[in-house]
């Protein structure tokens, strides 16, 4: 039976094969099936025959934009650190992009991490990716041996059970509240564009957190991150995290402690989130990568909401709209920085002149 995903898979293979055979791209970045159900392996096809291994399904949760800066470097002709760049255009890379991944590519272009003319983007309208942890929760954490995907359902099998699950019930939180499922930049469309879903309140989870008292919020945050093992999978799965030396790895000066002391873990998660402010597309790769089930995308989701409210922009929607936090405008909102002093007496206000 042909499903949307199997049709997309066929189209990806055909296009990737053509791009690799014609030499238009030096490498094509997609996914292949691995050794376990519900976990896809990001895969680089370098020969036309590798294209047959490319697969598209609901478990392609890693953000492929994450691999682009390194992959582009790897296909360049080797040269020493002091050699000039080679003459002529550099080799291209083909890549799959859904709505959020394409927006991450836009951000990477704006931040000079990748060059648009070196990418051949196959755009895919995303139907939402499945959260493996949600599936496991449905079977009480038991092992899943096989998973078969239909158009709107998943049939999973494990020790002593076989269960059909409605696909939408186990789609990731970020995908369920996504209003930009179609790519914003691409060279070829694969499959059909998805009609945007009606999302009642995409910041519903953030509203829930905002409704807490600050004590409740802090204890929620501490509980959420208490299981963090500092493996940095969230950081490394993130296409925004490309600093040559991350602040957590810096030792001169040492910004943050290295072990799993809650104070250090808190600083890591707070700073990681703030580094993503105005740049995050809520692709959910951080949460999908986390082995401990921490909902760290809620931290960045709050910042996404703030940036939208303050600046009226969303990351990566338009290459011509600069990122709000890296540009300065006379009329930038500043009421979150400067608040009016209320009932200030003259002694307390000493030195704080309006």
């Amino acid at each position, binding site marked *: 039976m042909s499903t949307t995903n199997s049709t997309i898979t066929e189209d990806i293979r055909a296009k990737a094969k053509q791009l690799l055979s014609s030499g238009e791209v030096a490498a094509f970045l997609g996914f292949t099936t691995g*050794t376990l159900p519900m976990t896809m392996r990001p895969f680089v096809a370098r020969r036309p025959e590798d294209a047959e291994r490319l697969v598209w399904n609901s478990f392609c949760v*890693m953000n492929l934009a994450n691999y682009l800066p390194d*992959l582009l470097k790897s296909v360049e002709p080797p040269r020493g650190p002091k050699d000039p760049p080679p003459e002529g255009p550099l080799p291209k890379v083909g890549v799959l992009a859904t709505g959020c991944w394409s927006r991450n590519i836009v951000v990477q272009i704006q931040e000079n991490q990748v060059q648009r003319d070196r990418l051949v983007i196959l755009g895919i309208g995303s139907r939402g990716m499945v959260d493996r942890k949600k599936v496991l929760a449905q079977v009480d954490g038991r092992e899943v*041996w096989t998973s078969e995907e239909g158009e709107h359902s998943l049939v999973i099998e494990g020790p002593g059970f076989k269960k059909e699950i409605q696909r939408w019930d186990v789609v990731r939180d970020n995908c369920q509240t996504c209003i930009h499922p179609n790519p914003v930049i691409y060279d070829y469309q694969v499959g059909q564009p998805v009609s945007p879903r009606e999302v009642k309140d995409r910041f519903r989870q953030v509203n829930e957190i905002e409704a807490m008292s600050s004590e409740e919020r802090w204890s929620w945050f501490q509980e959420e991150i208490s299981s963090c093992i500092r493996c940095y*999978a969230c950081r*490394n799965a993130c296409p925004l995290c490309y600093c040559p030396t991350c602040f957590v790895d810096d030792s001169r000066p040492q910004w943050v402690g290295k072990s799993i002391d809650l104070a250090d873990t808190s600083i890591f998660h707070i700073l990681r989130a703030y580094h993503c402010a105005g740049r995050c597309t809520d692709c959910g790769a951080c949460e999908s990568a986390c082995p401990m089930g921490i909902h760290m995308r809620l931290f960045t989701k709050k910042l996404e909401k703030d940036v939208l409210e303050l600046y009226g922009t969303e990351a990566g929607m338009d290459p011509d709209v600069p990122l709000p936090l890296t540009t300065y405008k006379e009329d930038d909102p500043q009421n979150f920085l400067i608040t009016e002093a209320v009932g200030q007496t003259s002694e307390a206000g000493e030195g704080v002149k309006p």
Partner: protein
Amino acid sequence: MKVLRLDKADLERWFVNWAKTREVYGPLRQSSSDSKSISVNKSYTDWAILKDGKFPELGTGLPKSPIKKFFFPQPETLFTCSKRKGDPDAFVFKEPENRDNARKVLVGVRPCDARSVELNNLPFEKDPYFQANRAKTAIVGFTCRDRCQTCFCKEVGGSPVGTEGMDIAVTQLDDFYMAEVITEKGEELVQEGGGASEASGEEISRLKESKAQVESLFSSMSDPAQALEAMKAKDLFALYNAPFWSQLADSCINCGICTFLCPTCYCFDIQDEVVKGTIRRIRYYDSCMFPLFTLQASGHNPRGQKVQRVRNRFMHKFKYFPDRFGPFSCVGCGRCIRECPVNIDIREVLKDLLAVE
């Protein structure tokens, strides 16, 4: 060796009695009381204190984390010293005052995890911290009855019914349990637990039969002893320069999941931390996946590229460690396979390594 026959109630009584003088840990479901949509939803088991004779939850495969944290804690405080001005002992490093001296019993440890303690003991043989932790921690293992998809203990020299590293090995037989008392520490636990009867000859032969049956579920892809010898005989540089490393690096995101959740990854770094006028020198987990792991003071990094870091993890487990200590540094628990966000499968890597001429 003493073999006892126990009912579930006997085991529960043991746990209660042990808890009088020790901390008793077992795998428990990590649950949240919260019903909010943002609540912490954790559908896995992990090591937690077993209170009131609570039975460990062993039904859903291995607990999330290995038991190495009980022997090689994250972090371990090695020394402390005062940094306060005028303190005559300022900057004199001393043994930490509040060392955790509680005796511990780990209940429900699977054979792979129990074996990891023996393997880690090889590099940590003369490490006073590891040895002190080991001396105060007893392992009550539960042999396996099923295998998970990601289990491969036999391929790397273990066994699903093995007792290596355990003080007591418990095997469930239908509605009752058999306990093999392996070490003196185990004997002490039996004395404290009390009231278990010696197994009959018939029961012991049933234990043997059951173990043999489980063993047959875990057919190995190759002869493990032969694979180990083959790896030792292979040329290091042929393995080092094998073409498949770059394909692995294509997928890898260089996070620390595999190393931190690995029972036999034992690399660490040491740092001084200052908290409220006290310096503590801590030893904490490091990962060869991180660039900082090999960064030198000069700024040079001999493993500056991802492919070099990915390669090191597997070369260490399957070549450097066996060359130096004998066995593979892997117990086949499969956590790295299950938890890897990009499906890097250590079994495939071992197969690829064994195929290198």
